[in-house]
């Protein structure tokens, strides 16, 4: 009886487990945040949360982006994140990333998001209170209509990152003085109109209210954890000064706007030190920022309500591209100022051009350094990058082969039928200098430039091979548009804006219109030549 009973019970228990097992499996899967993280997130954020490839991708370990409200984290997972973001890493407290986190809201269920975020927000040194399913459900509902990824700035505006450290300046009070000064007054001889407690411990001019001209003095104490040299960086509109233990550390004198930041160093022992900041505003804009750097402080410590604009390292490393000696450098990326199909050419000796294969013209000419690949060759390389050198001249920004029915008619770009444009490529000649080849309808064109280093310019020869049937009527070449054009003293020479001139050799005379220099093309069957000599003035 007893035995059979036990067998019966065992049978029931087994059935129970079997029948429940699908549920158990699915709930354990849903709750295994680590496994889900490994599957969906770790390729970029790394199994140790430090960001894949030594932090080439944003770390989650100790990331301030995960702290505070859960909404920020949930929204990033639901809708993704793109644009520039700043995330402190072990190596760089102000590391800028510009990558893309694709939205996961369509791929992950709410329980999966809960599991992943609870794992991430409580691993690798992160400590946050658990997210509840309800919070994900609510977030998903609230932003159900959203179809685009969050931009970093947009997200931070909605869900700011607050540090929960104690106030940077302890026992901070501010005094407001009424008056109008063109240089910092001796505040010890003035009576404050009001005194405030600044509980946030940050230098702020908010308590000056709507005053147009005023002075403020803040006094408090800063706690120094390690003895050593500390740097205070002050910026203000108008003047200001900072004193530590009654000793002037740095000062911004007289009237002027932001961007006149000054830094001063002082040696401090461990413990509390008096800090006093004096400030006056004469007229116009007003602002003050203050930051502290020193031993053990990774990221400059913000001591003002407005974030100090401390000069950061470059967003990407510089990777200069230089032409080899007696050679030519090429760059086919997205050159700012020209079209997506532009081809950068850097001649040895410091003369450079961008030829647009879309518009069939040299659109940019510049001097000295050719190009920097750092922008496009770091991360995903979003955006255009301008030439690296200087004295850039933008000659045209439109298709340059076109027709003109009369001297006053509107420009019609060659495009269809007998004037269809077609880029055909390039051949390299001496010193790897390129000859560009293209077609305009039945015309076959070759276009080669030779740098003239002594005269600081290029000579460009355009050879147009017209068929025996003849060239299209009214065909014109736009030499320059968008710059002020004036005839120069010498014949067939025109000033293009302020620092470039072009000399035209052709069998016809150019037409000068408002910001347009147009050359009529009277083409004979066979080869025709136009020479353009561009020179910086």
């Amino acid at each position, binding site marked *: 009886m007893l035995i059979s009973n036990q067998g019966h019970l065992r049978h029931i228990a087994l059935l129970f487990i079997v029948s429940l097992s699908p549920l158990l499996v699915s709930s354990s899967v849903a709750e295994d945040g680590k496994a889900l993280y490994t*599957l*969906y997130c770790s*390729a*970029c954020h*790394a199994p140790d949360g430090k960001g*894949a*490839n030594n932090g*080439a*991708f944003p770390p989650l370990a100790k990331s301030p982006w995960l702290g505070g409200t859960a909404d920020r984290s949930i929204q990033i997972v639901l809708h*993704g994140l793109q644009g520039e973001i700043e995330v402190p890493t072990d190596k760089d407290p102000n590391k800028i990333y510009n*990558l893309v986190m*694709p*939205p*996961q*809201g*369509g*791929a*992950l*269920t709410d329980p*999966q998001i809960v599991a992943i975020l609870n794992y991430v927000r409580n691993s690798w040194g992160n400590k946050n209170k658990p997210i509840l399913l309800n919070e994900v459900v609510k977030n998903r509902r609230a932003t159900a209509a959203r*179809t685009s990824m969050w931009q970093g700035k947009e997200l931070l505006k909605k869900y700011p990152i607050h540090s929960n450290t104690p106030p940077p300046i302890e026992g901070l009070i501010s005094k407001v003085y009424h008056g109008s000064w063109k240089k910092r007054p001796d505040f010890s001889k003035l009576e404050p109109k009001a005194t405030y407690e600044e509980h946030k411990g940050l230098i702020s001019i908010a308590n000056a209210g709507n005053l147009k001209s005023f002075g403020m003095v803040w006094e408090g104490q800063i706690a120094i954890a390690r003895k050593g040299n500390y740097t205070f960086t002050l910026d203000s509109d108008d003047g200001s000064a900072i004193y530590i233990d009654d000793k002037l550390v740095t000062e911004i004198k007289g009237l002027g706007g932001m961007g006149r930041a000054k830094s001063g160093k002082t040696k401090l022992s461990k413990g509390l030190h008096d800090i006093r900041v004096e400030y006056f505003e004469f007229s116009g804009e007003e602002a003050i920022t203050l930051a502290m750097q020193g031993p053990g402080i990774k990221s400059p410590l913000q001591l003002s309500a407005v974030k100090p604009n401390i000069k950061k390292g470059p967003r990407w490393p510089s990777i200069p*591209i230089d032409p080899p000696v007696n050679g030519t*450098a*090429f*760059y*086919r*990326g*997205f050159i700012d100022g020209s079209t*997506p*199909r532009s*081809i*950068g050419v850097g001649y040895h000796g410091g003369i450079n051009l961008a030829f647009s*294969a879309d518009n069939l013209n040299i659109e940019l000419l510049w001097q000295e350094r050719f190009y920097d*690949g750092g922008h496009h*060759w*770091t*991360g*995903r*390389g*979003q*955006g*255009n990058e301008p030439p690296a050198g200087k004295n850039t001249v933008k000659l045209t920004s439109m298709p340059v082969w076109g027709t003109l029915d009369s001297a006053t008619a509107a420009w019609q770009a060659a495009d269809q039928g007998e004037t269809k444009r077609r*880029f*055909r*490529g*390039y*051949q*390299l000649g001496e010193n*790897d200098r390129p000859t560009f080849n293209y077609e305009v309808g039945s015309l076959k064109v070759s276009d080669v430039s030779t740098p003239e280093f002594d005269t600081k310019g290029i000579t460009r020869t355009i050879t147009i091979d017209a068929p025996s049937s003849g060239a299209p009527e009214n065909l014109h070449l736009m030499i320059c548009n968008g710059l002020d054009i004036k005839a120069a003293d010498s014949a067939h020479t025109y000033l293009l804006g302020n620092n470039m001139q072009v000399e035209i050799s052709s069998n016809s005379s150019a037409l000068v219109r408002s910001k347009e220099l147009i050359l009529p093309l009277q083409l004979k069957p066979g080869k025709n030549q136009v020479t353009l000599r561009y020179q910086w003035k």
Partner: protein
Amino acid sequence: MRSLLLSLALISPLFAAPTQEEFYLREEIPLPKGEVMEIGSIALMPDQKVAVTTRRGDLWICEGAYADDLSKVKWTLAHRGLHEPLGMFYQDGSLILTQRPEVSKLTDTNNDGKIDSFETICADWGINGDYHEYAFGSTPDKDGNVWVVLCLTGSFNANSPWRGWCVRITPEGEMIPTCSGIRSPGGIGFNAEGDTFYTDNQGVWNGSSSLKWLKPGTFQGNPTGNIFYPDQTAIEPLKNQPKDGSRITTERERIPKFMPPAVVLPHGKVGQSPTAIIHDHTDGKFGPFANQVLVGEQTHSEVQRVFLEKVNGIYQGAVIKYLSGFEAGIIPMRLSDDGTLFIGGSNRGWASRGSKPFTFERVRSTGKTPFEILEMRAKPDGFELTFTEAVDPASIKPDSFSMAAWTYIYQSKYGSPEVDQATPVIKSATVSPDGKSARLIVDGLVKGHVHHLISNGVRSSKGSELWHKDAYYTLNEIPD
């Protein structure tokens, strides 16, 4: 209980789990010192030269990549300054490249090792400066056409002409719009029959990444590029627009041109970012998988193996994991006639498990045949498996297998969870007389679902377990 005990007993210490090293030798090919070689395309040239291009736009020629001693490889810089080529092959003394803005023919006309002629064959598609407007180009098809798949602007929009389309470029430079519906491709290539496939990445309208068949005139699933139907005349626009939040199987009923993914590469489980497509044309020189398709995987730094079959005129089949442990995210692959697989990779901008910033590697068969599922074919009532070696007949029984099935939401949101889960039941498993194949009778096949077969209990006649036990079959059609 009995089966659990039995399968425990079968995991005998006599047979260690198979490892890649037994079957394939993976070697890193030394790269030119100080150069950033984020390889985006590979071309095999005569005299055992190999050309590679980098994402930065350099073209290098490698000699000695086939030699036993790789320390002697020699690199020659042929040009710097291309526009992110993602497709290259050798033809009649020239290299044909698919660059971001164009298909071009590069030639060293004076044989000094440097390219001096850059002929633009076709530049008829749009680019607007968006970094995501990638163009992946194929090797030539039997008519000499280069197939190019054009990624959407930012992978979401069609802001430049022909974004979201596959186009063919004829040798004369004519561009033939061929298929709409593309999102974000990672590679393009042919199967052994010469049909064209590309890989598309998980994202909007792609519940998971997949391998897709570019049958001319078909719609591949992402409607964003459909705005360009009126700019061509050869293909009729879709009569019905796809419904958001549906299933591909449902939408196929409404949209006859809708070509379902031939093989879904389940997101996370198999990979996260599929890339290059080649097939094993070496007839045994690269292991026992002649004519099967190999797919690169960027995020997981792996190569997957795909068995394809046609059912009711549609391609479908199974993906099985294959090679792993590569040093960076795989982008291009090429397999030479002698059975040397070349892979190149980078992880700039998109992370990979392989943690080097870039890599160039080769893989060769050791000559030892792995015990694997060779083919997985759909049957009206289940599947037929063939194996690379004879199996232990005793191991072919329902308990040796298990199966799960699911599909994805077809939606404008990014990706999809696995939904509509089903649990097909393996009712019987019988082995063929030669021991090289097994027939599974399965209850509860679901049209359109991924069928995940796990073959934990299968053993070879020598007692070895399968190198890879998971196969994922996409059942677009159930054969009659």
